[in-house]
C-alpha cells in the first residue's frame, strides 16, 4: 500500500483519528442522543480539563520524563486561587496566583529532576503528596466555594456559540502544537527525550529546558484548576485525584512514547477526545461505571498493543 508521504509520516495520528471517527460512528448508531449539538459540546466540556493536563504531560513524556503530581497540583493551585478570589482579589490576579502556584510546583519538580538528579517518577511522586497536603492544609480539608459571575463566566460563557473552556482548550492546543513543532523549546524537548547525552554534547542546555518543561506541566495543570473551579463554583482540596492517570492515558493513546523522543500534541488531543467520547457514550448507553472502568483500561492497553504490533510488522 502506497501512502502520500505526509500521511505516511503522521500515520500514527491519522490512525488514532480513524479510531476516534469509528468510535463516534458506532456510538451514534447505538444511541440517537450522542450526535446532537448539546451532547457534543458536553463531551468537549468534559474533555477540557483532562486535555489541558494531558498537553503539559505530553511535553514531559516526550522529554523522557513523567509527572505524577499534576492532579495534586491542580487541587493546590485551585484552592489558592479560590482563597484569593474570596479575599476579593481581582479575577485576573487570582488566576495568575493559581497558575503561579502550579508553575512553582512544576519548577520545584524540574529543579529536583535536573539539578538534583532525582528520577522524575520519584520527584513527582513526592510532589504529588506534598501538593495534596498543601491543598488540604490551606483549606482545612473543606471546599472553598462561591465566586462572582465574572469568574464563573470562564466556565459558563460562550463566544460565538462556543463555550469559553472549549475555546481555551483549542487555543492552548494550537499554541502547544506550534511551540512543539516550530520553536527551540519544542526541538530541545524532543532531542532531550530522544538522547539526553547526545543533546548535552550538542550544546543543548539540558537542565534548563528540562526544568522549563516541568514548569509548563505544572502551569497547565493549574489552568485546568481554573476551569474546574469555575465550573463547580467551588475549589476542592481533594479535586484531581487520579487525573494524572487519565492524562497519561490520553497521551499514550495519542501515540506519545513513554520512552521519550516521540509524540505529538495533536495525538494527545485525539486521545483525550477518545476518552471523553467513550465515557460519554457508555453513560448514554447506561453502562455501569464499574464496567466503564474495565472498558477504559482495555482501550489503553489495546492502543499500546496496536502500536507495538505495527512496529513489529515493519521489521
Amino acid at each position: 500500500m502506497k501512502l502520500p508521504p505526509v500521511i505516511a509520516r503522521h500515520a500514527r495520528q491519522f490512525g488514532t483519528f480513524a479510531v476516534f471517527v469509528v468510535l463516534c460512528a458506532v456510538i451514534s448508531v447505538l444511541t440517537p442522543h450522542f450526535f446532537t449539538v448539546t451532547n457534543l459540546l458536553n463531551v468537549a466540556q468534559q474533555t477540557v480539563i483532562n486535555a489541558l493536563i494531558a498537553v503539559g504531560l505530553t511535553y514531559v513524556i516526550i522529554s523522557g520524563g513523567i509527572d505524577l503530581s499534576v492532579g495534586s497540583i491542580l487541587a493546590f493551585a485551585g484552592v489558592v486561587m479560590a482563597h484569593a478570589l474570596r479575599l476579593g482579589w481581582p479575577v485576573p490576579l487570582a488566576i495568575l496566583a493559581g497558575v503561579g502556584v502550579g508553575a512553582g510546583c512544576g519548577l520545584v519538580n524540574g529543579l529536583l529532576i535536573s539539578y538534583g538528579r532525582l528520577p522524575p517518577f520519584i520527584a513527582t511522586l513526592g510532589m504529588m503528596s506534598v501538593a495534596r497536603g498543601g491543598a488540604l492544609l490551606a483549606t482545612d480539608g473543606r471546599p472553598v466555594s462561591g465566586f462572582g459571575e465574572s469568574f464563573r463566566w470562564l466556565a459558563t460563557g460562550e463566544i460565538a456559540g462556543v463555550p469559553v473552556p472549549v475555546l481555551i482548550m483549542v487555543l492552548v492546543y494550537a499554541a502547544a502544537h506550534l511551540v512543539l513543532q516550530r520553536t527551540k523549546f519544542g526541538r530541545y524537548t524532543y532531542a532531550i527525550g530522544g538522547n539526553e547525552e547526545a543533546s548535552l554534547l550538542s550544546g543543548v542546555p539540558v537542565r534548563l529546558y528540562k526544568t522549563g518543561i516541568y514548569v509548563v506541566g505544572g502551569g497547565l495543570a493549574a489552568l485546568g484548576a481554573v476551569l474546574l473551579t469555575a465550573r463547580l463554583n467551588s475549589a476542592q482540596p481533594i479535586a484531581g485525584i487520579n487525573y494524572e492517570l487519565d492524562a497519561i492515558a490520553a497521551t499514550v493513546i495519542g501515540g506519545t512514547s513513554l520512552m521519550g523522543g516521540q509524540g505529538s500534541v495533536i495525538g494527545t488531543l485525539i486521545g483525550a477526545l477518545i476518552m471523553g467520547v467513550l465515557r460519554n457514550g457508555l453513560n448514554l448507553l447506561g453502562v455501569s461505571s464499574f464496567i466503564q472502568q474495565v472498558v477504559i483500561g482495555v482501550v489503553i492497553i489495546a492502543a499500546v498493543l496496536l502500536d507495538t504490533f505495527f512496529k513489529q510488522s515493519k521489521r
Partner: protein
Amino acid sequence: MEAAPAILQMKGIAKRYPGVVALDGVDLEVRRGEVHILLGENGAGKSTLMKILAGAVRRDAGTIALDGRECDLATPRAAQAAGVSIIYQEFNLVPHLTVAENIFLGREPRGQVPGLISAARLRTDAARLLRELEVTINPGAVVADLGVAEQQMVEVAKALSVEAKILVLDEPTSALSDKEIAQLFKVIRALRGRGVALIYISHRMEELFQIGDRVTVMRDGRYIATRDIPQTTLPELVSLMVGRDLTEHFPKKAVPPGEELLRVEHLSRTGALHDISLTLRRGEVVGLAGLMGSGRTELARAIFGADPVTAGRVTVKGREVKVGSPRQAIGLGLGLLTEDRKRQGLVLCLDIRANTCLASVDRFSAAGVVDGRRETAAAQKLTADLRVKTPGLHQRVVNLSGGNQQKVVLAKWLCCEADILIFDEPTRGIDVGSKVEIYQLINRLAAEGKAILMISSELPEILGMSDRILVMNRGRIAGEFTAAEATQEKILHCALGAHAA
C-alpha cells in the same frame, strides 16, 4: 584447494522499506571454514542482508539454505538455534549490566539452586573468554563505563560464547586499533581452522587481504560479483563496489598554518590525563594516535568541557578560558564529533534535519522560533555534500545505514560552523569512496582556516592526513612528529611505550 561445500546459500533475497529498496534479489554463498568478505558502499545493504540471516529482519522474498536444507530463520532465536551468531554493527549491550552478564545474557549458567544464576561461573567463564581475546577488561565492570573499543571486544566475546556454525562480524574493527585487530584476527583464524564459516564486513580495505578467503561485492542492494581473494586486487574490488575507479586515497593538501586557535597547557584529569600540552593553529590538521584506552577520547572530552579537569590551562583564540560545559565550548567555536554515534552523537528517533541542525538551533532561530526553511536548506546542502543515502530529510536517523549515520554526525558539526574541530574517529564505518570525500572535506576545512584535531585508530589515515602527529600513551603525550618524519613504526613504538620520547 578443493572447494569446501557451501554451508550457507542465500538466494534472491529482497527487502524494501518505505522509499528504499534495501535489497533487490541478492545471492550469497558461504563455505565451511572460510572467511567470506561482504563488500559494498554505505547503504549497499550489507547489514540488512546479515540481519535477515540472523532473523532480526524479515525478508520480502528469497530463500535461505543451511547445509543444503531450506530454513525459515524467522526470529533471532531460530537463527541462533540453527547455528548463526552475529556481531551487529551497532552495539547491542545492556549498559547497566556487567561485562560478564552481557556476554551470557539469555544463556546464564545455572547455579546449584534451581532458578538461580551461578555468579561465580558467570565470572570465570567470561574471564576465560576475555583472556582468549587477550584483552584486559574486568568481567565485573559495568558496560556503560567502557569505551567503544572495549565494548566492541565484549561484543566479540559474546558472539564467541555460543558455538556457532556461521559467525557474522559486521564492522567489528571500526572502533579497534591495530593491536586489538591483530588479536581479533588470531581468533578468527582459529575459528576458521575449526570449520566455522565467517562472514566479515569492513570498510578497511587492507583487512580484506589479510583475513579474507573470498569476497562478495554488493552495490545499491544488488549482487555484483564474488571473487577469490588471491585472484583479485584492491583496485578491482574498489571499482566493483563504487562503480568507478578511485585514484588517490589520501589527497592531502598542506595549508600554511595561521594563528594559534587552541592552546592546552598541563591539562590533567585524575586517573585519565597527565600533564597534556598541545597547540592547534588555523589550517592545521593534527593527528592524535594511540592505543585503545590511551586517553585520546578523554582528552577530547576534557577540552570540550564534557568532563571536568583537575588542572591545566586552556586558551582559545588568545583568551584563557574555563570550559565548563559543551555548550560553552560550542560558543567558543569548538566542535566535538564523538566516537560513539549511537550513544553520544545522534538522537536516533529524530529525523536527519533535526540531527543535522541540533548543535546550531540557536543560529537558525530568532526569539525562540526556529526557521524551518533555513534549517531545511542547510541540511539539504550538507547531506548532498556528504552524499548521505536517504529518501529524504524526514527519514529518521535510526533507519539509515551505519555509514550514513556517521555522515549525519559529521554534518551536524559542519552545520554549526565551529572553527576548532575535534574529530574522534571521523571515518568510522565509512566506505572507501566516501572516505576520500571526507578527506577532501577535511582539506577544504583546513583551507578555510579551521583547525582540526583528528583522533584515529587507522594509522594510514593519521599518516596520510595530518600535518603533525601526537601520540598518546597511558594518558600522556608520548611523542610528537611532523608529517615528514612520522612512520608507522615510530608511532607504534611510541604508542606501545617502549621508550617514551
